[in-house]
């Protein structure tokens, strides 16, 4: 792990085209500005992990459970039409 110390307004460069600027430091919150090519996705780590986890949960979809959901959806639709 590389550790660098930066002051407000200073930058680090990753590769030759990703720039990270420390914009604001307030207590334990740090605001970063990230300038990267569009093809590089930048996410908050926790959101990224959450979606990864949901994908992993979703990937073993089974036919039997799908059929149960189809049935429930059918009922839901039926209820809507009654009203």
């Amino acid at each position, binding site marked *: 792990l590389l550790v660098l110390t930066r002051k407000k307004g200073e930058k680090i460069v990753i590769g030759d085209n990703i720039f990270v600027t420390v914009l604001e430091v307030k207590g334990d919150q740090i605001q970063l500005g990230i300038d990267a090519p569009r093809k590089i996705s930048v996410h908050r780590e926790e959101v990224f992990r959450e979606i990864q986890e*949901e994908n992993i*949960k979703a*990937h073993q979809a089974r036919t039997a459970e799908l059929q149960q959901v189809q049935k*429930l959806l059918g009922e839901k639709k039926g209820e809507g039409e009654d009203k």
Partner: protein
Amino acid sequence: LRFATTRFGELEVPEEGVINFPEGLLGFEKNKKFVLLPTEENSPLLWLQSTEDPDLAFIVAEPGLLVKGYSFELPAEASKKLEAEKEEEVQVVCLLVIPEDPQQSTINLKGPLILNISRGLGLQVVLKEDYSTRHPVFNEASVSA
């Protein structure tokens, strides 16, 4: 294109029916090629089956059919990567997680898949909008009942 699947046996689809995900899905970056398959007649649910891994298949749905008032701004990088000039060119599907109790099924509204079917391209995006990765498909009342 002919490929094997564990759920549907061997399938054959025209090349233009294959959707390329150049970045894969989060957690599944190695799997780039998928096809959309219908489930049942009149069902909002579709299978997203990998053509490379017979066992890899997700259940997806057009979110508008399951959730009211879902809308977001298409991230700029998405339209570029999908070679889409207009929003009308793309289609959105979201992944479902169906647990043992199907009443507790959830849909991931935070990380939808954006598809440009005519170009055969797909991309999973992370939205800025405040949506849940685990939005209940069936309303809370029916979940607790």
